[in-house]
């Protein structure tokens, strides 16, 4: 750092300011280039992730459309839906008739939000449920992941009414769903979120099938 004969202009405030400015400009330019080079790939990866989770909750024989392209947004009360003010619903259709819906829900887990993808058919029956991301305790709460336990499959085929609404709880609370040894809050959060998801379906039944899909604006990111 200029230990060999420092030129005097280096001691001026202007040099320091200019140096910082130039560094900031160069770093910003590098970031812009890095972003430009990667954003299409990142967008593609995100789509693939979403596609993969949709395929897990909607059986493939139920649709022949590009589910990701048929997306609608429904405004909801963020107090009821754990902080979400809009629910994005993906619609699966076969021969231009809607056959199933999939949407993402948030549960208030033990250590943070649990993101859940829920697939339902046109009558509000659960086709499949998957936990997309969570921060629950490894070894205790992570049995909600399909790769660790098939607990999450317990929802498949159920509706709000079969079992009764009052039974949509973990066994400890008088419901019908198993809790885990050492972890009750996590499964309770998932059960609640799925129940809320089905209530959402009933409340918005007509909109869900009639709203026109959002046109995906290209390159607006």
């Amino acid at each position: 750092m200029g230990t060999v004969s420092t030129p005097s202009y280096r001691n001026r405030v202007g040099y320091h300011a200019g140096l910082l400015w130039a560094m900031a400009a160069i770093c910003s330019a590098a970031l812009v280039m890095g972003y430009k080079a990667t954003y299409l790939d990142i967008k593609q990866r995100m789509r693939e992730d979403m596609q993969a989770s949709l395929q897990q909750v909607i059986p493939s024989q139920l649709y022949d459309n590009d589910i990701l392209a048929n997306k609608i947004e429904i405004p909801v009360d963020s107090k009821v839906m754990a902080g979400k003010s809009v629910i994005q619903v993906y619609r699966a259709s076969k021969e231009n008739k809607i056959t199933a819906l999939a949407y993402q829900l948030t549960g208030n887990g033990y250590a943070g939000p649990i993101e859940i993808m829920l697939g339902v058919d046109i009558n509000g029956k659960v086709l499949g449920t998957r936990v997309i991301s969570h921060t629950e305790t490894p070894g205790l709460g992570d049995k909600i992941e399909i790769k660790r336990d098939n607990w999450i499959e317990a929802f498949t085929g159920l509706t709000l009414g079969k079992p009764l609404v009052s039974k949509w709880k973990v066994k400890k609370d008088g419901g019908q769903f198993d809790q885990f040894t050492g972890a009750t809050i996590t499964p309770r959060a998932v059960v609640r979120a799925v129940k809320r998801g089905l209530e959402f379906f009933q409340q918005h039944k007509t909109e869900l099938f009639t709203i026109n899909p959002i046109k995906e604006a290209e390159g607006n990111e």
Partner: protein
Amino acid sequence: MSEAVTIKYSRIAKDGFWENNVVMSQMLALCPLLAVTSTATNGLGMGLATMVVMIISALVISLIRDLITSEVRIPVFVLIIAAIVTIVDLSMNAWLHELHKILGLFIPLIVTNCAILGRAESFASRNPVRYSVFDGFMMGVGFIFVLVTVGAVREILGSGTLFANASLLLGNAFSFLEMTLIPEYGGFLLMILPPGGFLALGFLLAGKRLIDRKLATTDKKDINIIDEPSSEQATA
């Protein structure tokens, strides 16, 4: 290579890997260490990402070291390191997406990894490019060594496997690394949770002290004081 240069390189290599190791001697970068080392694979991934950032930042900072004045050096270093980390983060998200899903949370934290700023301050800003890049590389190797060791210990004791999901990180050619050492193992939760990280690190540090003492008694020649200022004071 003249003899002096060779000595300098072997000095840097020894410092980076063992004697002035980022974790074991400088006691830096403990936060990412404890956070990601629940498996050996995660440790390796984090180590590689950190090494890449260290090498690039050493290269850039060493190249412009004569332009930087001591008054503004810290903000300049932080700017450069933050830019490099962001670009590494974006690249990993785009091209190593599976790994990014595991490590994604921790990549931006490399910015706050004081080991990188420490090396920029105490080495890269005072030494020619070739030494600085080599120092970045060796410090990175030393960091990977610790991360993988702690990760391996925690993974074996905690879940009975070793290098689980290594093929996600290194490609399918490396799936042979994935081992189940203890089949039907119930798991030992403590080792996977943060306390396990502290435990493993504590034993590792104690182990290093033991080995150093052994070396000192068997071979007196090996005791020589590190000839550069230690970077512990540079970044608290």
